[in-house]
């Protein structure tokens, strides 16, 4: 269990150097929730779009008198049509994420949380609505949402491997899944397909410990999952290395493939690296035009 305040502050620190992240609103016809994403045409919104000559149907109170005073015609301020994007986060909180191979490294969960919340902070600063998958935290905007999100992200799960919930994903919204993706791929696959069906695009970020990439083991070893539920005993761990790496590569490949077919982005991040890299990638991935 991480202290939500600490998590918040580290996430703020991580997010600080980046400009507010404005996710592109791709298509939100049915998303009636309005946000700050200008549609480049007049509509409901807060931001000034253009002056146009007042029409007969315009109410008098809509006339911009300051502009109208400089000419003979009355002008009306058109607001830009703005909608807010909803972004759903899923940060794996399962036991497997709590692994760290070295005291100097953050656990995968810590890194995942930080990245997730940092993204959320950037998005909220950009005026987006951010929420969590499932029905735990529907997308909302504002600082209060961040506090709540930090609170929820700090909870740990006892299951070995986490699976995303596809519920609560608004159609045509965006999603971000952060996990090690070491558990069963089926739920993830289902979730992704379901999301794709709903027109949800997003990014998969795989967070791995360097040891999980290197497999530097030798000798007789019993490998246990973090909860101890799964066990595998080997007498020569060194011999397994090649096959383990093959499987890991295959899994990444599968995820990549899955992401490509569903229009998602996939990236692997190691806890040994700086979190900023991953955040930059997330920035890019969520900003990307469809």
């Amino acid at each position: 269990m991480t202290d939500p305040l600490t998590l918040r502050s580290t996430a703020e620190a991580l997010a600080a150097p980046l400009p507010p992240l404005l996710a592109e609103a791709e298509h939100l016809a049915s998303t009636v929730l309005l946000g700050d994403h200008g549609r480049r045409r007049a509509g409901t919104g807060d931001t000034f779009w253009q002056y146009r000559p007042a029409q007969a149907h315009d109410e008098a109170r809509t006339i911009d008198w300051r502009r109208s005073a400089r000419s003979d015609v009355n002008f009306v301020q058109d607001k830009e049509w703005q909608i807010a994007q909803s972004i759903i986060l899923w940060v794996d909180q399962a036991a497997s994420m709590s692994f760290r191979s070295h005291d100097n490294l953050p656990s995968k969960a810590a890194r995942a949380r930080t990245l997730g919340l940092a993204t959320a902070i950037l998005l909220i600063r950009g005026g987006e609505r951010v929420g969590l998958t499932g029905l735990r935290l529907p997308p909302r905007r504002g600082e209060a949402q961040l506090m709540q999100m930090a609170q929820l992200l700090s909870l740990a799960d006892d299951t070995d491997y986490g699976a995303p919930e596809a519920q609560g994903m608004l159609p045509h919204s965006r999603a971000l899944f952060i996990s090690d993706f070491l558990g069963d791929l089926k739920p993830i696959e289902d979730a992704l397909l379901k999301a794709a069906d709903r027109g949800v695009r997003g990014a998969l970020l795989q967070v791995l410990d360097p040891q999980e990439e290197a497999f530097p083991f030798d000798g007789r070893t019993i490998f246990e999952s973090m909860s101890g539920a799964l066990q595998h005993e080997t007498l020569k761990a060194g011999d397994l290395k090649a096959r383990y790496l093959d499987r890991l590569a295959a899994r990444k490949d599968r995820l990549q493939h899955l992401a490509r077919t569903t229009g998602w982005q996939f990236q692997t991040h190691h806890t040994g690296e700086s979190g900023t890299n991953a955040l930059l990638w997330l920035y890019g991935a969520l900003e990307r035009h469809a």
Partner: protein
Amino acid sequence: MWSIGPIGFVAPWLLLGLIALPILWILLRAVPPAPIRRRFPGVALLLGLTDDENQTDRTPWWLLLLRILAIAAAIIGFAGPVLNPQNAREGSGNLVILLDGSWAGAPSWQARIDRVETLLTEAALADRLTAVINLNDLPVGELPFAAPSAWQNRLPNILPKPWQPGDPAGWFAQSDEAFETYWISDGLDWAGRDDLLAELESRGAVTVFQTPRQTVGLRPSRFEDGQVIVSATRSPIGNALDTNVTAIGLDPAGVERQLATVPLSFAPGDAVAETAMVLPPELRNRITRFEVSGTRSAGAVSLTDDALKRREVALIAGRDDREGLELLSPLYYLREALEPTADIIDGTLEDILLANPDVIILADVASLAGTETDSVLEWVENGGMLLRFAGPRLAASDMGRDAADPLLPVRLRSGGRSVGGAMSWGEPKTLAPFAEDSPFYGLPVPEDVTVTSQVMAQPDPTLAERVIAQLTDGTPLVTRQLVGEGQVVLVHVTANAEWSNLPLSGLFVQMLERLAVSTRPVQPDATELEGTTWLPNKVLDAYGRLEDGSALPGVAGEVLGLGVPGPDLPPGLYAGGDRQFAINVIGAETLLTVAQWPARITIEGMDIVRETALKGWLLSATVLLLLIDVIASLAVGGRLRGPRADVAAALVLLMLLAPQAQAQSTDDFALRATTEVVLAHVLTGDPETDDIAQAGLLGLSQTLFRRTSIEPAAPVGVNIETDELAFFPFLYWPVTADQPLPSREAYAKLNRYLRTGGMIMFDTRDADTARFGSGSPEGRKLQAIARSLDIPSIEPIPSDHVLTRTFYLLQDFPGRYASRDVWVEAAPMNAEQVEGMPFRNLNDGVTPVIIGGNDWARAWAVDNNGRRMFPVGRGMSGERQREIAYRFGVNVIMHVLTGNYKSDQVHVPDLLDRLGQ
């Protein structure tokens, strides 16, 4: 104790545990190494993967072998293995341990004593009464049985003697006690050995301890055909043996030296080897003994006596104008008589005296020139022997008529006399028997020796004592007078057959021998020795060492004549009268024979094999193997990772490489410091100060390189505790307030450095704030450091100090600060300025210290790009000050390297010119 080969076991039953090893092997094999449990989220990917090979299911065979070996070592270790176990000698009853105790055993005497000691220890365990008897030094009375422990205390007093046992059988026959005998033999046969063996066997069992080893005996040398023949005999006769024989004697300074060494080779199967030594007579006559190199035994030493000496005899005749009449030559008979036994010198008297012969024979020489007389007299007084023969010239001369001539023993009456001739009365005179106090005493007087003419001695109160041979009528034939250490002898007849037929007789030769003009080639016979007493001058001990024998009683001539060394005639050099006689252990005909024992006698070796308990070694091996097992198990189990592996590898590397690395670095340091001139600074422990000192010396080195013929390499920092200082001509020592005081060893090193011409420049670097000697922290530290240093009295650099002109002409010695308080070794008190000279002649050497506080290093310091690191002063005057600081540095190094070269007055005119005076 149960034993296999040379290894015995204290607890052999424990070895049965070895049977369990195969079982253990199987058991251990079945137990794989304990697995490591690892939390690893990636386990999901591993599920379903199977191990390729199942070998590591079991412990690897080598690890298994390691463990089995460790356990085997432990089992064997606890079984108490002992190398060379000593089975205690059985036996009861009284025990006699005999030692031959002759010179042949001397080289390995300690081994014999050790053997006796172990035998005594065993006897003590068996509680036997024991007697240790040296056959060469038989105790008086009964067999001295005592407790073995008592004998152990007395063992150091049992020493070998330089002769062979006499008749111990008779001594043992005194009593009829029964005892067992351990006989420690020297390996040489001797006369009464068989009798003794029979006697001992009648008392009890006899066990002989003997090691076959070569015994070499050096026989007396002899003189043949101008060569010294050295021969040696050996026993047992075996393969070829090469050794060296060394001739030892006094050198002209009276110091004993090896005069010559010749190889001596025994051919295989030969008992005797001979070699010849060709030596100049001067060298040969100085030989006192021969030794076989590297053997400590009296048998390997052969003393020389007169037999080897060949005296140098100079012959001078007064009448050599009668060519072709050889038989009438006054020297003919002398030459014939002396040639076999002496070296004859011819020449003029001056040349002869330079050669310092033993004897000068003047045959019918009447008078010598004045200077010759003096020099001959001096030579006689220094031990020379002047032998004069009469003759017509002497008879005709006035020599010694009126006053005694120092070169004649008696005064002579004029004319001499003739008897028995055609024109005279009487018969030719014969010789009277020699008196007892005459050196010729004992020589038979042939009847047919007659004298027809002689010179007559003036009757004189001292005449009687000077006569050593006379005629039957009482007239002197040979007279002698001792002069100083030498003597003057006059034979009152001619040296040829003109006046007497004495030179034709054998008596003539014998008389010459007795006079020690010539040396006799043969040993004196018993009759000759009868009644004489000989004093031991030097005696040999069994180890072949010469000892002073003056405390020993004299030896009767009869005993000496036998020539067999024994308790009453220890081998050595005996002196009687003017002769020396050597008694050697080995005679000219001695053959060494090996002691042969009957087959019934048990013969054991001399070697003592010490028990060596192997338990400790084996248990250590066990521990070591187990330690290896720990590391190997960790490696096999995959646990040797991360910090553990680092630590293990570091430990191994440290053990393997550390000493070499150390040695390497020391060598590198020495090479770096000595291949070129290197300026050095003392490391203070303060990194900044050290860096600045380094940079300063670098700047100075570069300046020296550019401006002078001194081309120093990069400066180095020197740790005065660990580094060698002798490589450096100059040490710069920046004094910091908090540097530690040098250790005692470092002080010793520093003082040695200062005394042997090194220079240390102390820099307190505080001249901006403190005056010299005032209480700045650095100043106090300098005082503390210098308290134990060997620093002479110091003074501020005087204006005529050589430092002011070794390269540049300077009067200021600034560094970063321009204080004038720079101190060097004080000039001697008596240094006076000579009139007209600008400089005093100051101390003859390099000042060992320069003490100041001007922070020279900062003024000199340059960085790696050659840029000045610290500002000095302001503007151009500051740069000038820096320049002067460099010049001072150059002067210092010049002073260090060239000493007081500029202190001389050679350059005075130039210097005066440049000084504008």
